[in-house]
């Protein structure tokens, strides 16, 4: 089979973080080629380059063995490359046909005529590949699986022959996922080239003709999935077990926070949180590993006191149900929260660094009584904290927090949250998007908090981070803690637990 799309020696970095280094990848006409790797392995970055969304720093892109340069997604579409993103890019209030018409090149005729024509094309294509979809229906009324079909039809009708699907089964039920993958396999049999970005071993084994494994921004190996065991694939994805870094284990104290049977309300026969049990002990880091989208965000929201419906027990030692605590009480209980969405939940980008810092303790009257906010004092303390926590890029604490880089914004969050010796630390993906140095600084802070007796919960999709920091590790899958490991934990065993239960 001839080569459809080929990427050679591709590198790309973001803010000094090397997302891809010397990655190479080839997909042939008529095959389903799986791209396997952990979160942050560089799968999506590589595919975004193939789809013309990012420009590579080095390396080449070849289509039908001819070198091409993509200046944007429109160029990619012209080269018949179509990508279905993990987060759908659909206009919700528009109908299916209108959404698809948006992505088609402009043609003659009135809008009404073109819409009719598109509806006919959709019906025809859907029939041909075995989708059932009503082109007149509004996208907002469709289920997730149906929306995904719209996305696929959109790229197919735009003429795509090289199809990139980014984690297509992550949002689907097992049956839906299976149906989708067999459809996609059918497309490949008719001559298309399909790239399946995934972390599910089972899908790879069943539906892929070849698989390329990525790890740490590199393409490790390309194999025939039939010739290799799942265990070996896991090993390739998570890498060899490294010797545990120096990590003096401190003696854990009593349980400070116990979660029992935590569930979210049932929606469509599924619970996002489906009976979480865990306990946090003082002087210990409890890491939650798992593939993204298995309920980690919801768990983080519930524990951090953000609006998130839940039932079950969250008992805080000496207080009672944590959910009844308002934010003031949470501060008094010295609970520090480092949410994953920095500018959505932790910092107001439009306000100054000093305001963002001072809001942490202003409730206690530290910066003057209610009727008088002592801004000078808040600024002084912010300045001191900025220095103590090494927040860089601060010329003046009055500058907007949005001007800080990701790592420094995170340091500012930590400076605020740790300004009163925390007793419980809740951290969700605390080093996501940070470069190695900033990430290491964040890790130091978490370890220091643990050593001073705090109970630390670290929810992260980065297995390396969890392995490096956690004293105990719970693996989260489909809303449950499916396995627990004591340090030193076996990387392969964790990797297997992460994917086995999906």
């Amino acid at each position, binding site marked *: 089979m001839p080569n459809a799309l080929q990427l050679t020696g591709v590198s790309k970095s973001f803010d000094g973080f090397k997302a891809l280094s010397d990655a190479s990848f080839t997909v042939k006409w008529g095959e389903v080629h799986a791209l396997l790797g952990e979160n942050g392995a560089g799968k999506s970055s590589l595919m975004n380059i193939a789809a013309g969304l990012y420009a590579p720093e080095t390396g080449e892109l070849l289509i039908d063995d001819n070198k091409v340069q993509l200046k944007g997604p429109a160029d990619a579409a012209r080269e018949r490359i179509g990508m279905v993103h993990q987060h759908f890019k659909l206009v919700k209030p528009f109908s299916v046909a209108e959404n698809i018409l948006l992505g088609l090149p402009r043609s003659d005729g009135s809008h009404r005529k073109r819409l009719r024509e598109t509806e006919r094309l959709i019906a025809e294509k859907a029939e041909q590949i075995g989708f059932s979809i009503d082109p007149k229906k509004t996208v907002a009324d469709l289920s997730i699986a149906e929306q995904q079909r719209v996305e696929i039809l959109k790229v197919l009708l735009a003429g795509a022959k090289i199809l990139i699907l980014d984690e297509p089964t992550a949002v689907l039920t097992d049956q839906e996922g299976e149906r989708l993958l067999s459809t996609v396999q059918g497309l490949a049999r008719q001559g298309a080239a399909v790239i399946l970005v995934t972390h599910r071993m089972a899908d790879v084994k069943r539906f892929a003709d070849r698989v390329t494994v990525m790890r740490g921004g590199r393409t490790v190996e390309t194999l025939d999935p039939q010739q290799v065991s799942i265990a070996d694939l896991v090993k390739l994805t998570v890498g060899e077990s490294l010797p545990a870094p120096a990590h003096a284990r401190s003696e854990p104290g009593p349980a400070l926070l116990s979660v029992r049977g935590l569930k979210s309300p049932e929606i469509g026969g599924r619970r996002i949180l489906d009976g979480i049990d865990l306990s946090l002990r003082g002087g210990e880091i409890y890491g939650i590993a798992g593939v993204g989208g298995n309920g980690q965000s919801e768990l983080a929201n519930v524990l951090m006191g953000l609006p998130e419906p839940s039932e079950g027990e969250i008992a805080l030692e000496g207080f009672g149900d944590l959910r009844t605590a308002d934010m003031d009480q949470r501060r008094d209980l010295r609970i520090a929260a480092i949410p994953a969405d920095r500018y959505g939940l932790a910092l107001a*980008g439009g306000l100054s660094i000093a*305001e963002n810092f001072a*809001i*942490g303790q202003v409730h206690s009257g530290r*910066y*003057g009584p209610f009727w*008088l906010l002592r801004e000078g004092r808040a600024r002084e303390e912010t300045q001191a904290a900025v220095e103590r926590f090494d927040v860089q890029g601060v010329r003046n604490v009055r500058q907007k927090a949005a001007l800080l880089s990701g790592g420094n914004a995170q340091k500012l969050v930590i400076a605020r949250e740790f300004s009163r010796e925390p007793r419980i630390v809740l951290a969700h993906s605390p080093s996501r998007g940070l470069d190695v140095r900033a990430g290491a600084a964040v890790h130091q802070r978490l370890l220091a908090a643990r050593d001073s007796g705090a109970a630390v919960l670290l929810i992260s999709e980065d297995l390396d981070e969890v392995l490096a920091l956690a004293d105990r590790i719970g693996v989260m899958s489909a809303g449950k803690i499916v396995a627990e490991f004591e340090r030193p934990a076996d990387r392969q065993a964790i990797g297997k637990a992460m994917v086995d239960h999906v």
Partner: protein
Amino acid sequence: MSELSNATRPTSAPKRQPLTSRRYALEIRQQMAWHWQALILAVSLIFGLGISAAILIAAGVPGGELLDEFVILTLFDAQSLRAVLFQAAPIVMVGIAGCLAFRARFWNLGLEGQMIWGGIAATAISLFEVGPESTRLALMFVAATLAGLAWALAPVLLKLNLKVNEIISTLMLNYIAANFLLHLVYGAWKDPKDSFPYSPQYRAFERLPEMFDGYSMAIPLAVLVALFAWWFVGVCRAGLYLRFVDANPRVADAVGVPVRKVIVGTVLLSGGLAGIAGFVVAAGQEGRLTQAFYQGYGFSGILIAFLARNNPLAATIVALLVATLFVAGRNLQVFYQIPFSMVQLIQALIVICVASSDFFIRHRIRRIAGRES
């Protein structure tokens, strides 16, 4: 394409780039020093005044007298200045009421309804002779504040509890208040003396007194309101909370700002200030409850808050400007028989000019390389 056209062009290329091939990029500014902002505002104000002057001259007002009439007579004549300040007092209050509510991300379009209730409550105190004469005026003030505040309570609770859009609820409540006012002044509260549709005149001690030199008590009251609002948003802790609610309510909630309390409190304050404005118009200007005393104030309040970017001190200045336009317009009407619609046209022109200056404050236009360079 461009290579082709290059080839056919004469070798002696003109030095100046033709205007049509120049290209400009529009960028969003991060920040701008305040004096530049002030300069841009001033330029746009002058631009608006220039257009207005041209219109007035075209309508037959002698150009030379225009400056006299507009600037000198309005601002440097004691009588007119008194009128401007007096007129500005309730406008300052509604403007600030708008600022506060908008800062809490609450689109209070019910300023007029809250004013009406302020007026009704004050009149009720007068009509039913509540309390001794010495405290009557203070009682009227308190009643007006509470009534305005109460009229804002339902929309804010509806919004927070049931997600009812406050734009609709506050706007519709205006009509209820206005029709209830008509019901009163055409019915039970009609002045028995002459049967006109307004309430009986307030007694002397129920009216805002003149302080000195003919300046009404309404003026220091407006100053107090402005100072209070400045303290509220800039000095006290609630101001910091309010900035967080304004910047990002989700972040505010997550970092422990009592978002609900802040929103309810601020909106009630907004309603209360509008109530006071109603009291000031009734007890200061009209001396009774009339059927249309509130008209135009709601619109002015929203406009002022928008132009002042919800800053209470800036709102005070803008309110003074609006009052000046109002008084100058009245003078123009009287002395030059300029129709009222033209006065409105001029006011609208100036407002549009000032409002569009916002675009230049937030954006930068930068010339980029031309197509053929």
